[in-house]
């Protein structure tokens, strides 16, 4: 019985993860010594930590390093998504402090949890082993269950956490079953190996174990990205969760889900593309349609954005169904810009709502346009970006997604997509209608834009507009990112 010799491993691919984990733990320790009214320092610390880790991430651009025996890889794809996660987390951190203070639940553990979530998401994006991906997913999910229920005193928050937890673990069951079947069909959990084995199969689509495994896995991830019919949790959880966490949830985990899906499907199962793109076609249509149509009649603005978030998952699925470089690069681009515009919109919602998340209906925005013109303009930019109006990032993103589908020959999918996005215009416009075209019922004097929120808004506006006007560089990075898959 010899000793187990732990092999020398290359740590490069997970340096940002390590950094963030260490930072999170450090914050946990610091938290003990920070008095409850000074928790903002933790926010600043974690924000700078996120920036630092972003630097670390960016540093890895262009390299391709596999490590841990093929459990994890550092490549442009992962880097791109990691940036997206960090953007989401950074913005979420910035907008959290004010909200949490107001709601009286500014516990210092919030920030470490966010950072751990990011670690989980990063592992999903860079993992090349089903186990890594699964564990990344769970780290992310468990943190999110907690974050969703973070405001213990709020019944809604409680309920959101519980719902998310129960349905999330239910979906985990399917995901795992799928992984098990894949494992059974291929004999391994390493994506590269799966790719090789599946590539050697004469007719992979006839292998039911494989196909079923693929579908079940898709189910699991579809839950995370809120694709119909696995989307039902989304509106409730988004509504109930503390708003900054909703913002974070809508941007980060969705992107992470796509990262994992893309990684698995494009890396390991490209030979099954005919099958999965067929399914994704249907899912995309269902998701867009359900999301958009249901959103039309919502009153609570968080719910509106929740359904809109479902619809956006649908748009991204359009690009995914196409499965080509245009579409997938579109997903990458879209997820990044979606993080900006959606979190920006939620930031405005935070500002407009009052303690206890009252004042959160669409009609409560009445007259904002002329009482607080800057905020309203900013919100309008986010909304138009969400609606996909040029010259915003949302438009370019959608353009690439749908273009991917068209390039692939899925014209009807693109047509359904654009019709959906025309319908979606209605509920985004509805918010602008209230902001600009209805008389104000309140004077919005309670709105205070603190420095972090202001910064978050500025970043979001820049992130929604600049990629819309000069999208080239981001798109090129996205293209490079998907090329290596």
């Amino acid at each position, binding site marked *: 019985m010899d000793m187990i010799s732990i092999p020398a491993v290359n740590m490069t691919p997970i340096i940002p993860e390590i950094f963030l984990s260490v930072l999170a733990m450090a914050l946990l320790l610091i938290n003990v010594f920070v008095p409850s009214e000074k928790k903002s320092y933790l926010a600043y610390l974690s924000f700078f930590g996120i920036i630092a880790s972003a630097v670390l991430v960016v540093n890895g651009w262009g390299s391709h390093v596999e490590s841990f025996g093929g459990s994890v890889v550092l490549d442009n794809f992962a880097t791109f998504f990691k940036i997206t996660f960090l953007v989401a987390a950074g913005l979420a951190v910035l907008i959290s402090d004010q909200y949490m203070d107001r709601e009286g639940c500014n516990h210092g553990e919030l920030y470490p949890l966010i950072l751990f979530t990011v670690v989980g998401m990063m592992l999903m994006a860079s993992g090349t082993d089903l186990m890594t991906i699964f564990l990344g997913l769970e780290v992310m999910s468990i943190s999110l269950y907690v974050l969703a229920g973070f405001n213990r005193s709020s019944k809604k928050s409680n309920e959101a956490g519980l719902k998310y937890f129960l349905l999330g673990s239910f979906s985990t069951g399917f995901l795992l079953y799928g992984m098990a079947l894949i494992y059974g069909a291929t004999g391994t959990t390493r994506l590269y190996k799966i790719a090789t084995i599946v590539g050697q199969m004469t007719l992979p689509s006839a292998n039911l174990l494989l196909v079923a495994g693929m579908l079940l896995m898709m189910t699991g991830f579809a839950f995370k990205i809120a694709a119909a019919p696995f989307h039902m949790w989304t509106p409730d959880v988004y509504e109930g969760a503390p708003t900054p966490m909703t913002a974070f949830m809508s941007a980060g985990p969705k992107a992470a889900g796509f990262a994992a899906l893309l990684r698995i499907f494009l890396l390991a199962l490209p030979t099954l593309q005919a099958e999965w793109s067929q399914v994704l076609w249907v899912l995309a249509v269902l998701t867009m349609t359900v999301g958009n149509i249901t959103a039309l009649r919502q009153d609570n603005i968080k719910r509106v954005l929740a359904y809109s978030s479902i619809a956006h998952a649908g748009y991204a699925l359009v690009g995914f169904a196409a499965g080509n*470089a*245009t579409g997938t*690069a579109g997903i990458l681009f879209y997820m990044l810009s979606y993080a900006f515009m959606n979190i920006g919109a939620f930031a405005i919602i935070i500002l407009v709502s009052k303690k206890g998340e009252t004042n959160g209906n669409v009609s409560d925005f009445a007259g904002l*346009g*002329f009482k607080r*013109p800057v905020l309203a303009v900013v919100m309008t930019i986010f909304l*138009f970006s969400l609606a996909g*109006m*040029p*010259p915003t990032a949302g*438009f*370019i993103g959608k*353009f*690439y997604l*749908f*273009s991917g589908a*068209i*390039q692939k020959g899925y*014209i009807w999918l*693109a*047509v359904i997509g*654009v*019709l959906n*996005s*025309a*319908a979606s*215009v*209605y509920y985004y*416009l*509805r918010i*602008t*209608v209230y902001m*600009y*075209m209805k008389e104000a019922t309140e004077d919005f004097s309670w709105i205070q834009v603190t420095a972090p929120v202001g910064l978050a808004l500025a970043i979001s506006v820049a992130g929604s507009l600049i990629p819309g006007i*000069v*999208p*080239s560089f981001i*798109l*090129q990075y*996205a*293209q490079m990112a998907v090329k290596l898959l």
Partner: protein
Amino acid sequence: MSNVLSLTTFLPLLGVLLLLFIPKDSKGVLRNVTLAVTALTFAVSLLILNGFQTNAEFQFVENVPWIAAGPFMMRYNIGIDGISLWLVILTTFIMPIAVLSTYTAVEERVKEYMICLLLLETGMLGAFISLDLFLFYIFWEVMLIPMYFMIGIWGGKNKIYAAVKFFIYTMVGSLLMLVALVFLYFKGMEAGITDFGLLHFFTLKLDLATQIWLFLAFAFAFAIKVPMFPLHTWLPDAHTEAPTAGSVILAAVLLKMGTYGYVRFAIPLFPDAANKFAPLIATLAVIGIIYAALVAMVQEDVKKLVAYSSVAHLGFVMLGIFAFNVEGISGGMLQMLNHGISTGALFLIVGFIYERRHTRLITDFGGLSKQMPVFATIFMIVTFSSVGLPGTNGFVGEFLILLGAFESTLRWWTIVATSGVILSAVYMLWVFQRVMFGELDNPKNQKLADLNGREIAIMVPLIVMIFFMGLYPKPIIDKMEPAIKKLVSQVRVSTPVAQAQSIQPVVALPAEGQAPAPEAGGTHETSAPAASTPQGTTTAPAVNPHDAK
């Protein structure tokens, strides 16, 4: 001076930046600055006019890479030819007038209003000068936003409905166009085209089925914007609710986007399909002419009436464009300009009385001529311009359209459309009579003030243009003709089918100096049987005496 086109387009945007620094309470400054910016834009656009060479080429071209990622290559590719030149000038010309019209009409949220106006101008100009399909689409969509806010914020009672309807209606069409645009791009990529440049796609040969689908998508988007029957119902709502300047711009420029889209994109890109659908579109256009005229006749709201008259006028434009000959298309182009001026003026006129009386119901008026003689005169001139009285601009366009359409295969359509000329007189004169003639019996009307200096100043340039374009349209036609000839050849070249149906010989024949040809032994006895084929059913290509020589 090489980027004067960009300068024109983005000058209003700079104006927006300027406005941001002006406090919102100093309304006068805001107004004057906006006026100055638009006037300056107009002045700069005159430089374009001055430097424009009369030929079919695109001029003032600027072409720099913009987006390059994945399969796509978008360029900031702009330029104008004879077709877009005048629409650019029209836009810059109308804008100061529109701004001037808001001096008393808009008292609230002046700053925002002016910003909307300037943004709108950039959007419109950009759409007219884009030679890159993608760039065009961007501007096309951008225009919607300020217009939406103008209707929605400063509109009338039903403003929200109108604004949202306007936005979504247009959006549906343009998004489908986007799909077609991308599809076209990929088709082009197969043929070796590497960017969205419009000119590349002119050379692209597509099979008929593809053309049909693409054409339908483009045509749908443009038809909504035009608006063509039966996609017009957003227009009366939008017009009725929009503030005066909004209506003016909407009528004068925005609707032209649709017709311009046909001329610039839908037709030359998909000539075969355009030929195939010409009868259908002509039918819709003609229905639109008659239908809108009949509906306009019974309107109770002056503004709505003018809105419906727009539908009818643009029906004429569409008919002319789909005649596919120089006369028809030139007529269509002229009519676009005319409609911009006349209908813009009509909306201003409605705005004047609305400002005074806060009603637009025809029954609330009557006998205003007595109280407001200057107003009456101007209204009358504009009315007759709208009716298409010879000597005013309306006639030249309408005449050329009908002439061109009559020459083409759309003869029977033309005959029906010509009856629209009668109906337009009916509804315009009727409303004029009810508003201006009769007893001045409503006490509220008896104290109305006539137009003041500013209002007259607004109308004078329009009136001058009405007569100038009616009496001496030559410079305008001359500048646009080469481009139109090119367009006609684009439509004709690839259409053997359509040519067989076409009765007339190739237009490109030099027509100058061809005096009536004395045919050898040309007594009436010999010529009588040769030409006795009944009109309308002639299908054999006519014998051209000059070809024989």
